[in-house]
């Protein structure tokens, strides 16, 4: 590693961590309707939204009503996007006159963007009109992230409130998350990216004549505005097919730094937001400690592995150094690994190099990050509510060990809460192992796998893990655009999204109604190193025991077979 590699890592942590406490407090104030410096700008817009929608911002909802609103909004968003993709050839802003998407692909894409997954079985520059990208995908990029944030604050209120029957108002939470939470940061990042070289235009693709006299088409479009939200909203769906590996999506090392930091900037801040809701920032620091421990373990393994020369390329005529297949020269090994680890720790799924060509152990770190449920920072909102589920499970385990009724921040965890927690524990196994096993046993799947040996299995495993975890990155060699994969992966994404959201809202409702017991001398403290260790081990054990056999068949077998 060179000095610029260390600078990148230092700068990355600085950009993510320094603003986090302030941003976290800002999100708390915004979501609770307190006045901030942005209120004069967005306050009038917000009020217009409520008036048109007929929403009373003061009227709170029970968890059932909150859930119903969320589902209605997501369903409407899905139907609108599905229609735009099917009929884009009849709609304006289609300068390349691209046809509508085939219906299973349109279903897959619409589900993918509604669930904040942004799995892409298409290549943007070749198949989507500017209108589809902008009014279709960009909108879901915003509101799917806002939906995640809304669910998180509902859970925070559930934990923080005493004997309450309501969790807030979904319409208000979603609107505030979009306007105050996402738009301002996106504007800043989008303009920074244009400065660095990302196109932002509605003009046609440009015809160029290369220096050696060959015709070359330069694809353009309103890319920067979409790339900003795809990073900040932990979406990940690229404007171009190869995502941020494309020099137009991520043109420089500086653009790369801010794009990769943008992936977890909001998720890290939301850990502090939680602390404000429960009026105890020690809880935030403990949870952040666990997330960092897991991030550093995965990051170190991935970095070490990716710097080993590929033994199968051993030859006197070939330079023996860190592998470069699928990587861009301007990012190098560290820039690519940092992105791979961050994008899978969060539910982002954008890539700046090809995951399929990573060393086996780096690919495995990406898989493990997703398999543990994307709670290492995780998606906007989704990461933190996923992490809080793990916190409750760890508290439950601790309660069993010391023989007391488990309680978290004064709230007793009883049978109903534990049942709901168990439901969420089943989401990833069902999505990855059940759907993945069905896919593996269908004969047609073999034709979609493009690498031989254990790596071929990893391609399939990665696809179903990525869909169920709502990540969206891929071992992209897999020919995922078949009706079978489009529908099955779409199903995986729905299970992975609503399999968490519904139990989380029920849990929030149930916790909100409880009285809060005073935290006494005998309560198990959830902010010290002991709890951080317990939480970290819980996450690794639950994920590890479930998925270790599949990892052994895929990346571990590949690693052992390559003669490292």
């Amino acid at each position, binding site marked *: 590693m060179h000095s610029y590699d260390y600078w990148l890592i230092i700068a990355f942590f600085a950009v993510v961590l320094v603003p986090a406490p302030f941003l976290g407090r800002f999100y708390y104030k915004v979501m609770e309707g307190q006045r901030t410096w942005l209120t004069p700008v967005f306050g009038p817009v917000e009020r217009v*939204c409520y008036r048109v*929608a007929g929403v009373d911002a003061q009227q709170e909802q029970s968890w059932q009503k909150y859930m119903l609103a969320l589902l*209605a909004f997501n369903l409407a968003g899905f139907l609108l996007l599905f229609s735009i993709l099917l009929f884009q050839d009849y709609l304006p802003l289609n300068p390349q006159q691209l046809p509508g998407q085939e219906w299973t692909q349109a279903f897959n894409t619409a589900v993918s963007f509604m669930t904040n997954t942004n799995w892409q079985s298409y290549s943007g520059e070749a198949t989507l009109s500017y209108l589809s990208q902008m009014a279709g995908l960009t909108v879901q990029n915003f509101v799917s992230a806002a939906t995640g944030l809304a669910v998180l604050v509902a859970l925070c209120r559930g934990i923080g409130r005493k004997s309450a029957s309501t969790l807030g108002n979904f319409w208000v939470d979603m609107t505030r998350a979009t306007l105050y939470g996402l738009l301002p940061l996106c504007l800043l990042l989008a303009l920074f990216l244009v400065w660095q070289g990302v196109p932002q235009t509605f003009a046609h693709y440009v015809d160029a004549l290369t*220096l050696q006299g060959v015709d070359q088409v330069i694809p353009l479009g309103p890319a920067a505005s979409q790339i900003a*939200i795809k990073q900040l909203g932990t979406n990940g769906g690229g404007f171009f097919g190869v995502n941020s590996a494309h*020099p137009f999506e991520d043109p420089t090392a500086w653009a790369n730094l801010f794009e990769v930091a943008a992936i977890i900037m909001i998720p890290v801040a939301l850990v502090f937001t939680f602390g404000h809701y429960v009026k105890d920032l020690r809880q935030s620091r403990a949870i952040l400690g666990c997330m960092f421990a897991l991030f550093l373990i995965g990051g170190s393994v991935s970095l070490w592995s990716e710097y080993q020369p590929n033994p199968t390329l051993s030859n006197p005529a070939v*330079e023996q*150094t860190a592998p470069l297949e699928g990587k861009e020269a301007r990012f190098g090994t560290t820039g690519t690994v940092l992105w791979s680890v961050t994008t899978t720790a969060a539910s982002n799924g954008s890539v700046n190099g090809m995951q399929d060509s990573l060393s086996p152990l780096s690919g495995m770190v990406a898989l493990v990050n997703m398999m543990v449920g994307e709670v290492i920072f995780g998606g906007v909102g989704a990461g933190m509510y996923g992490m809080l589920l793990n916190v409750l499970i760890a508290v439950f385990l601790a309660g069993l060990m010391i023989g007391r009724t488990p309680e978290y921040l004064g709230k007793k965890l009883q049978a109903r809460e534990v049942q709901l927690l168990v439901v969420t524990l089943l989401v990833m196994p069902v999505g990855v192992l059940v759907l993945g096993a069905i896919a593996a046993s269908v004969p047609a799947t073999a034709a979609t796998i493009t690498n031989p040996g254990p790596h071929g299995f990893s391609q399939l495993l990665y696809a179903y893990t990525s869909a169920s975890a709502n990540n969206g990155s891929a071992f*992209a060699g897999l020919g995922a655009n078949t009706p079978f994969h489009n529908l099955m992966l779409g199903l995986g994404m729905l299970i992975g999204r609503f399999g968490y959201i519904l139990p989380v809202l029920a849990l929030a409702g149930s916790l909100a109604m409880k009285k809060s017991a005073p935290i006494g001398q005998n309560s198990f403290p959830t902010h010290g190193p002991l709890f951080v260790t317990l939480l970290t081990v819980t996450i690794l054990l639950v994920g590890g025991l479930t998925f270790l056999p599949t990892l052994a068949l895929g990346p571990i077998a590949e690693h052992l077979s390559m003669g490292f």
Partner: protein
Amino acid sequence: MSSTIRPALSLLVLMTLITGVAYPLVVTGVAQVAFPDQANGSLVRDAEGKVRGSSLIAQEFTGERWFHSRPSAGAFATVSSSASNLGPSNPALAARVFDDAAKIQVPGQGPVPLALLTTSGSGLDPHLPPQAIAYQLARVAAARQLPVSTLERLMDEHIEQPLVGPPVVNVLALNMALEKL
């Protein structure tokens, strides 16, 4: 029921107008004024004003007289761009790398830099590490009957070294400067 449907539909329309229309338009407006070059694709033009490419998109260079770009899995196609997605253990990767190495290797210059043997993530990587340019110096100098030291100086002028990323040379920019020598 209408207490759910009305807000769902109207907020969806409003969010589409705000985030799907107003937001991209505002970014486009500001970008076209503040950074018109970059916003329109960082296009490179010749003396007559004809577009010869984009400084961010690789071009294919063949023959002895040019510095070659990184190999492209998608044959430098821009619509759509693509990568090899070969796994590290795939025998096809080793076969391709060994084949290319045998063709490119220059006797006495040591092993071929890996960047010249591996395809990039985008298939459109506009850069090469300096040492991969250096490996081509002797060939280009001989073909153009120029002293190696002149080309070495030209290469050094084109090395970009950001604080947070590896040093790179833009191959199109270097080749355009080469034409002007």
